[in-house]
């Protein structure tokens, strides 16, 4: 609700700024931000952090105007890019593309008008288009979780894994995870898709529990799914599951980490706030004397009770 109001307000403000363009000489650096609409937890977090960063940046830099637009689909995002470039002169575009292939052409068109391009999270099919690339490290999400888990289990045991939606993101996480596990005596009993959906994770975990009499740990690869998994484990009353881990740093799970939950003592971040990182870096390119061309990969350190505070955003929907 807040987000929508905020978006409406900013759109209104942008319109007002447009009509008073001649007199308003201060906000002359226009930075467009194009992100997917909030359709699930993670993108909900992206929208939240983008609106927060917009407010903070416009407060801090009176000459910067951030124009935020959300899109329901890849084609809607491509249309939004056309609308943005035809109505105003953009200094920079910060984009979290819906899909890599479909958005590559449209972003290239924006670049050709002389706009600075920042790509977030999903890379475009052609790297040469972007000036700045900001992303999380999905391989590290899997890798770091697996390292921690194998250390706790002493390098042996039986685990089950839940996969998300068949995408590059999911493939990379699973790759990072299995690479580490392959080097230990830990056996992955089962690995199936639950589509980053709490309900499907719940039923899949119930089925895993029915199928395997001994499970030492579960990796849900995503905190949304982890919540479904925990419910299924609790209902079964089974005592053999020592660890149930997720990933992404959802606030409910960060709270569990803070409370030193025995089954979920850690998480790994793949933070939606990376959109804010990208926005701040792009602004620095134009307002500070800080060159920002290149690639910036956010690390995925373990979230533990000691550092959980840094990853906790109680107002975020995610």
């Amino acid at each position, binding site marked *: 609700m807040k987000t929508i109001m905020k978006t409406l307000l900013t759109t209104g403000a942008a319109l007002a700024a447009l009509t008073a363009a001649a007199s308003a000489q201060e906000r002359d650096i226009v930075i467009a931000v194009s992100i997917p609409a909030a359709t699930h937890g993670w993108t909900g*977090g992206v929208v939240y952090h983008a609106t927060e960063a917009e407010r903070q940046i416009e407060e801090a830099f009176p000459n910067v105007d951030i124009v935020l637009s959300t899109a329901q689909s890849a084609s809607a995002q491509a249309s939004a890019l056309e609308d943005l470039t035809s109505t105003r002169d953009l200094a920079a575009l910060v984009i979290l593309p819906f899909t890599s292939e479909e958005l590559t052409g449209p972003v290239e068109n924006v670049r050709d008008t002389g706009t600075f391009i920042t790509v977030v999270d999903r890379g475009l099919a052609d790297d040469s288009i972007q000036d700045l690339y900001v992303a999380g490290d999905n391989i590290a999400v899997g890798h770091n979780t697996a390292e921690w888990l194998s250390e706790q289990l002493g390098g042996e045991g039986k685990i089950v894994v839940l996969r998300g939606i068949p995408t590059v993101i999911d493939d990379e996480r699973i790759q990072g995870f299995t690479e580490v596990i392959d080097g230990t005596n830990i056996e992955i009993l089962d690995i199936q898709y639950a589509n980053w959906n709490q309900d499907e994770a719940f039923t899949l975990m119930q*089925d895993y529990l029915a199928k395997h009499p001994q499970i030492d740990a579960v990796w849900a690869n995503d905190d949304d799914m982890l919540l479904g998994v925990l419910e299924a484990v609790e209902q079964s009353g089974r005592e053999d599951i020592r660890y149930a881990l997720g990933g992404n740093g959802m606030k409910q799970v960060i709270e569990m980490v803070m409370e030193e939950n025995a089954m979920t003592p850690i998480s790994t971040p793949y933070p939606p706030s990376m959109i804010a990182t990208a926005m701040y870096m792009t602004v620095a390119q134009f307002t500070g004397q800080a060159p920002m061309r290149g690639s910036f990969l956010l690390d995925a350190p373990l979230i533990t009770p000691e550092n959980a505070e840094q990853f906790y955003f109680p107002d975020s929907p995610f």
Partner: protein
Amino acid sequence: MTTVEMTQTRSRDGWQIRWSDLGPWIALAVIVLVGALINSNFLTSANLGNVITRSAFVAIIAIGATFVIASGGLDLSVGSMMAFVTGVMILVMNSLAPTYGASAIFMGAGVALIVGALCGLLNGLVVTIGKIEPFIVTLGTMGIFRALITWMSDGGSIPIDRDLRAAYRPVYFGSFLGVPIPIWITVAVVLVGAFLLYRTKFGRRVQAAGANPEVARFSGVSVAGVRTMAFVLQGVCVAIAAICYVPRLGAATPTTGQLWELQVITAVVIGGTMLRGGRGRIWGTIAGALIIETIANLMVLSDMVSEYLVAAVQGVIIIIAMLAHRFLR
């Protein structure tokens, strides 16, 4: 026409078994048998309990869908409506909890039933008064309800109050006389549905309106009224499913109930209800819902199918079940 035939068969056969009605149950029996052979854990009471309990949502919604489809309608909005009703219910419960304590659960459930009925009424009125194809109307409301839940949750989740959660949890996880509560609720909905469809004037009119609206109209049936009522029943069933759903995970999210409409329609059609209307099969619908959940469960329990091919195998089994059903007739 179908209605007439059906009533005749009923009176002529008396207690005799009608094979076409047993089709879905035979299919289910075969799947269960195969399941028992594949994995010995399949027949454990814990596993069967899980499968039957979780099929309650689709089964309850599919009872309503049986009425809508039998009356010649179709409702694609049930999954989104379910998410929307769940969201409204949790918000109401959370806001009433500080004043009313645990009885906020009953008030929230009451509000859910009203909201569900109104959502169904909206679908029904646009279809009958607006004279627009139900496919298009409910495709529209599907988007509306989905967007509303996304907006209400900011794209995140709407969790239920922690204290309420504890009090509410037994509605999904508890049991009475050894049978999980959601199964009792499903049985109640099925009995009421079967009574309405097979034993009342309304039920006969539903099937008459679906079989041949012109004939039904000439025999004095208000086709629009009957169809609207079917959509309202559907809305109420969605709300009942939502009441069982909330205590399971304790939250509504924008992905709640996603694609359930397809599972519901599949369950209804596997059960022997005709997609073009005119014939409803309540008991068959239940078999259909159980078949869908059992197949999904077997996919996980068997080690034979690659995780990438699960959906394809599920599709093949459903088509085979339908073909078997046809040849048994």
